[in-house]
């Protein structure tokens, strides 16, 4: 609904597409029955704090940080799957209140429903988001997006019959089918082997070029972030993770995965990222 208005709004307005203001998330321990009478003592685990970030429309942004730093928490907050403890998330000038079809989410474990075929998985998303659409419309649209990820032939297969890479392509098709402005990806290629991962990265880039969407990608792979992103956001080690740095990746597009590695600019950023990640990972490992 507010999607239309946001699409109309031009880019020269004085806010960015996605803005995070002083965002923080604390996970409180569940209160036990016996604790009901004791007041206060609301100690919890602070995953992230004071996150401020601006993301421009149709850019590709990667968030990278050591494991356990709250990257996924940050993504869940943007997706509206969890509510922040403090701060706010603003999309096109409007604070979000929960999840919405303007944001398509892609999970690491694909999250396809095993009782539905490939095409039914996409139809489920379409039926949920566009209840007014006719059956034929939904089918047609689901087919179109399956075709986009090259899986039209697998439309009547069940997820268990697909490889990991195919499953993630279906998940990408599902997320894009609802025509979101933003694609939120939580380590989408983390569970795939290296070759499949490269293939899907290229696939994602070409999809991103064709469907103008803003992508927020959580990853722990420096190479992946460098190959795909316009901007890389570095997070410190948790708990109470903050954004330690934002690096813009001004490498020319389209990027070729072999050539890019010779680029001195690429190497410079890569070294910087490696240093940061190593430092933060050391902080994680040596605390415990």
């Amino acid at each position, binding site marked *: 609904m507010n999607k239309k208005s946001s699409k109309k709004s031009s880019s020269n307005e004085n806010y960015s597409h996605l803005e995070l203001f002083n965002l923080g998330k604390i996970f409180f321990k569940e209160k036990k029955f016996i604790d009901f009478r004791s007041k206060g003592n609301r100690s919890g685990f602070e995953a992230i704090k004071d996150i401020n970030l601006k993301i421009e429309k149709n850019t590709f942004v990667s968030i990278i940080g050591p494991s356990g730093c709250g990257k996924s928490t940050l993504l869940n907050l943007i*997706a*509206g*799957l969890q509510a922040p403890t403090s701060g706010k998330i603003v999309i096109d000038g409007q604070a979000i209140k*929960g*999840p*919405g*079809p303007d*944001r*398509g*989410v892609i*999970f690491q*474990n694909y*999250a396809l*429903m*095993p*009782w*539905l075929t490939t095409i039914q998985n996409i139809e*489920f*998303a379409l039926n*949920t*988001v566009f209840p007014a659409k006719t059956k034929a419309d939904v089918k047609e649209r689901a087919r179109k997006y399956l075709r986009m990820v090259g899986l039209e032939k697998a439309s009547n297969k*069940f997820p*268990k019959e697909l490889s990991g890479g195919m499953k993630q392509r279906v998940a990408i098709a599902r997320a894009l089918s*609802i025509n979101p402005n933003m694609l939120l990806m939580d380590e989408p290629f983390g569970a795939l082997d290296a070759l499949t991962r490269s293939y899907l990265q290229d696939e994602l880039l070409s999809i991103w070029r064709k469907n103008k969407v803003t992508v927020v990608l959580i990853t722990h792979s420096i190479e992946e972030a460098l190959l795909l992103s316009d901007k890389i956001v570095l997070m410190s080690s948790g708990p109470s993770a903050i954004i330690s740095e934002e690096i813009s990746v001004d490498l020319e597009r389209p990027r070729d995965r072999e050539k890019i590695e010779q680029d001195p600019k690429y190497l410079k950023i890569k070294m910087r990222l490696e240093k940061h990640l190593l430092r933060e990972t050391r902080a994680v490992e040596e605390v415990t």
Partner: protein
Amino acid sequence: MNKAISTRLTFAVAILSLLIFIILWQVIAQQGLLVKNFPGSFKTIGSLIWWVSDPFFDNGPNDLGIGTNLLISLRRVLIGYSLAVLVAVPLGVLMGMSKLAQSSLNPYVQLLKPVSPLAWLPVGLFVFRNSEITGIFVIFITSIWPTLINTAFGVASINPDYLRVSKSLGASKSTTIRRVILPAIMPNILAGMRISMGTAWLVIVAAEMLLGTGIGYFIWNEWNNLSLENIFVAIIIIGFTGFILDQFFGFLQDKFDYSI
């Protein structure tokens, strides 16, 4: 080993063991090794053939064909069981989804689950004053717990990814329940239903001894006639029917096993 040969071998072994069993039974009974007048396997098989060749006669409540009695029992089980499933699944979903429902209902479930359903028989008779409804009621109580507990467990342990997908699409609670939770927990529901059916089939025999008519009453009646071979016939029929019912649920479970 070749699969076809192995299947045939298994079959042959089963037949052989059955033959040995029948012969042993006959010898032991004939020699009076157990007790005097214990019916042998030949006599029992003869009775079985007699009962099965005309299963649906009706000469009054104390002289019904074994098929008629079986159908009476099956009817009671199916009605009581279906009602139980209709209550247990929604209640289980509620208990799995809501902490409040879980903590307010769980004590009753835990307290009542271990009680033999037969304890409810006098309660049923007192309230309904009708043996037919009481039988159904006892089966209802019997069948409700396994399905309820399995359903609640299924909801509580559902893969959170499915729920997150549903939530991220902005699905309503009812859509999430109908299109995500229910299909996701189908294997749990069916596992519960299978256990419920098994228990219901166990309990109906005992309940009917006290209620009149049905396969359980048939056994009681033949005990009064001191016709042990007819009791063995009933045991064979009950076992066979239970096996078929269980296989049916096994088949359904395979259909809804998403992992294969």
